[in-house]
């Protein structure tokens, strides 16, 4: 996983619980990277899972809730860093649909082997979008958080269903996103 994700996780933990909490987290998890993360570097996926799991215990927040909250936080910070991607897309659905064909293409130009997830989209009608998520990391909760962050940016209310999930034995996850009036 790219270092920028770890940088933003560190930023969130420090912002919400202080530097001492982040320091404690690193002391407890003892990651191979020693907690030294550079935005352009690659770090083992397990580290983010270990850090999130331990943070969930420390802060007494369910892991799914924490990961989803992190996804939302991650989105708003990525937007600050690369505003052009949201500026190019006029609405929530068009942004979601641009993730695979626009954003990931740009990420590949910047980073070697970024091992990005694969998305497939089906626009069922003007109010509904089905999104298929495939990734060996199975970070569907993070994807949910990123979707929440995007919805917040575009100021839309929506309902999300997650009827097919890799954590329940499927080979991919499916999100059904329905816009609320």
């Amino acid at each position, binding site marked *: 996983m790219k270092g920028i994700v770890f940088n933003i996780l560190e930023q969130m933990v420090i912002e919400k619980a202080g*530097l001492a909490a*982040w320091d404690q987290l690193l002391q407890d998890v003892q990651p191979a990277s020693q*907690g030294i993360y550079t935005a352009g570097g690659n770090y083992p996926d397990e580290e983010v899972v270990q850090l999130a799991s331990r943070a969930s215990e420390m802060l007494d927040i369910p892991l799914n809730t924490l990961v989803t909250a992190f996804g939302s936080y991650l989105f708003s910070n990525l937007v600050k860093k690369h505003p052009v991607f949201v500026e190019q897309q006029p609405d929530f659905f068009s942004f979601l649909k641009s993730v695979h064909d626009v954003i990931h293409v740009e990420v590949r130009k910047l980073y070697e082997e970024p091992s990005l997830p694969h998305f497939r989209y089906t626009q069922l009608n003007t109010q509904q979008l089905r999104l298929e998520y495939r990734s060996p990391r199975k970070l569907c909760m993070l994807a949910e958080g990123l979707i929440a962050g995007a919805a917040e940016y575009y100021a839309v209310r929506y309902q999300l269903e997650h009827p097919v999930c890799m954590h329940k034995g499927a080979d991919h996850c499916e999100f059904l996103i329905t816009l609320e009036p």
Partner: protein
Amino acid sequence: MSANDNDLARELAIYQRALQREKQARLDAEQLLENSTRQLYQQNQTLQQQQAAMLQNEKLATIGMLSAGIAHEINNPLAVVLSNLNALTDYTEQLLTLLEQVQQWQQQGTLNASAAERFTQLDSQADFAFLAEDAPDMMEDMREGLIRVQDIVSNLKTFSRTRPGERQQVDINQCIQTSLRLVNNTIKDHCSVVTDLPPLPEVAVNNSELSQVFMNLIINAAHATEDQHGQIQLRTRQQADCLVIEVEDNGCGIPENLCKDIFNPFFTTKPPGKGTGMGLSVAHSIISNHGGTLTVNSTPGLGSCFTICLPLDMKQPLSVTEHPIKP
């Protein structure tokens, strides 16, 4: 130490660890940047080389098109001039025979007085003896000059040919040995030839065109070693999906600033009249038409090595990036 001091010390330790992590992260980022910059530089170098090779190929393609037109335009009048020159040579011979006969009559005194006087008058003006001696030489020089022009035109046609000639399965080693036999008389006084030709699979090529390439390269190598009794090495080998043929000499080498021009038509370093400057460009064109590459590696004073890579499967031309035209 008070509890307050303990808290401060703990907090200081936390900040120190954070600082250490930040410092290390900055070093890692600098290393990443350095690696990326180096990679970018290398890619830029490759791109520049490819661009140079592309420009060179485009230049050769343009010259090829021009050459085709020029060759066609020159060929027809050239054929007329050559044919007329042959007829003129015959006419001149007949006139010289007549002149010789008149000279004999003059010497024998069989011409009447006024004819003899007129002949003497004309002879003093034209110097028939010199004319009789010089005219055949001039005719021969003209014929040689025109045949040279014909060779140049023929080379231009070969250079500009875009369609492959007739091809058959050929043992490249045998083709090299045949070429060597053909040029042996020309080169044997200048240098010795060492061959290393291990068995190779046959490849579909135009035998006479390839032979022309090998002869050009061998003769060039011999010329490069003219001043010192040199050595030419002819080597072949199979490398992955192509045949590699190397013609290496220990001659004078090619100055670096000339390397980029040697495959251009009419480029020659030989004295006027010694070379047409078409040999290497024709060779390059023939090899390109076979989907292969011809490159040179040369060190002034030490010698040159011309390397041909011919794809075993002629349907799969070698890409520029795999075997760029050097330099």
